[in-house]
């Protein structure tokens, strides 16, 4: 019996990601969720600008490539004209938390019934390793060569915390994909974010703390350790917003 194989919701196209980049794991988790909920035929994904720009080639469902940061707006359009379809975006930290912050916050506050997979690896990967809104204090990048100086460029944005301050969004959780246990939790969160949409619950965002070995200048294994040592202490994992809990209590 096969206990583990490539999900059907992925195409046969090999990922272009660098060796050890955990984008591939997150793609797989999204595809597993789509398979398990049996929604591939009515799902439309929205790809970002950034490392995952070619996500449209990897997911077997219909796909739209959005302009940088605009995926939540594009997804809003898709969902509003096809309310029974399942619409998700897959976005990085530059895309979602920098240039697309307005689109993100407003989709959240409309409780738009879409699913957002937000990959936070604290750096701009595609352009070669520049500072992201989520780069850690002191983190050396191409555009913060002396380390992120919080006195001049401020502190990182904690997207899950920020969005959970809004009343409207249904579900916000932060997970990581740096070890087997965390990947399994990430899978549960991602599946739930899709399940919420199937049930018409509203805006569901999963922030996935991910690695960028190439631009962090680390081996794939060391990059996963860095997530444990540096990223997770700054970006604690957990459920930040869960209106199903609030509704239970009410």
């Amino acid at each position: 019996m096969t206990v583990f194989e490539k999900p059907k919701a992925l195409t046969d196209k090999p990922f272009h990601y660098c060796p050890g980049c955990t984008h591939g794991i997150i793609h797989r988790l999204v595809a597993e969720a789509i398979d398990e909920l049996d929604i591939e035929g009515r799902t439309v994904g929205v790809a970002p600008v950034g490392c995952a720009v070619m996500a449209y080639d990897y997911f077997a469902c219909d796909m739209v490539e959005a302009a940088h940061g605009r995926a939540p707006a594009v997804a809003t359009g898709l969902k509003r004209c096809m309310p029974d379809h399942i619409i998700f975006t897959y976005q990085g930290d530059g895309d979602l938390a920098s240039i697309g912050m307005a689109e993100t916050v407003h989709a959240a506050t409309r409780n738009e019934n879409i699913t957002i997979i937000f990959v936070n690896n604290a750096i701009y990967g595609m352009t070669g390793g520049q500072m992201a809104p989520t780069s850690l204090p002191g983190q050396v990048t191409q555009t913060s060569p002396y380390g992120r100086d919080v006195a001049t460029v401020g502190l990182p944005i904690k997207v899950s915390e920020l969005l959970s301050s809004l009343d409207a969004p249904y579900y916000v959780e932060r997970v990581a994909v740096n070890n087997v246990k965390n990947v399994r939790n990430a899978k549960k969160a991602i599946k739930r974010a899709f399940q919420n949409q199937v049930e018409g619950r509203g805006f569901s965002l999963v922030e996935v703390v991910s690695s960028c070995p190439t631009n962090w200048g680390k081996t794939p294994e060391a990059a996963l350790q860095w997530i444990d040592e540096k990223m997770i202490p700054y970006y604690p994992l957990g459920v930040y917003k869960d209106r199903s809990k609030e509704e239970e209590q009410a």
Partner: protein
Amino acid sequence: MADKVLMKGNEAIAEAAILAGCRHYFGYPITPQTEIAAYMAKRMPKIGGVFLQAESEISAINMVYGVAGAGFRVMTSSSSPGVSLKQEGISYIAGADLPALIVNVQRGGPGLGGIQPSQSDYFQATKGGGHGDYRLIVLAPSSVQEMADMTAKAFELAEKYRMPAMLLADGTMGQMMEPVELPEPSESKVEKPWAVTGTKKERKHNIINSLYLNPEELERTNFERYERYKTIEENEVLYESYKMEDAEYCVVAFGIAARVSKNAVNAARARGLKVGMIRPITLWPFPKDVLAKAAEQVKGFLSVELSMGQMIEDLRLATACRRPVHLCNRAGGMIPSPEEVLDALNKLKGECEA
């Protein structure tokens, strides 16, 4: 024949869009076109349509991009500064070969400019506006009736050629009330096998995209698009020719400027000056051939514009500078009076006969 109703230009656009089967509107308030959004906000929920006030013009046009990708008739509207913000999305819509309608009820610029009527977005509308090689079909109505008719036409052309179309009006046209006979209801008749409506696991996935990392492939899409543009230039040019049969001078004007100019043409004729007018209705494709032909007939041209002179460049190109081309213009929200146009015509005559 349907009864005429008295409507504001902006409202005529909105109702005509609904009659053309548009059930998705995304916009952001800006003077002087907000009536379109207000009208849609009122009507869409009653007819099972979608009105959504976006967080920005940028979001609005990207919502349009999403709906257009799914193959539905969709529109947004704005005024000059807001249309500047939409340019990114328009470029993507053009690059992904999607049909959509963008309405620009122009106001004075640059920058925040003013809220009075203008035609100073002519370059932006007809020369591309955003980045990359692309065109918009640009329709320039000059009456409330045409605002309604051209809205329906814009949807049709956008779908026929899989590209964004723009209705280019101005503040006066938007606010003006006139009797209008609303167009018959219509709907999309174009098959859209490319739309992202879900694979149903019955076909390979569709991808709405404008990214091509292979330059040869990207070049091919550009050439293919320009082949389509050539067809449009051959088949879709619209213009009005007014008293041109025996004209010795030709006024060229569109939109509100054409209404003023028509009065000036009549006044000139009353004074014995043989003047006619060619009014481009499609600004792109520009009525090049009819103007080139007019250059064989008339002694000079007068471009009347609510800008510092933008269409005049296309006029000079179309007529290959074979005749003098003068400009009669006001800017910043001012409209030339028929007297000013008449004065300019007399000056043109003076120069041509000197």
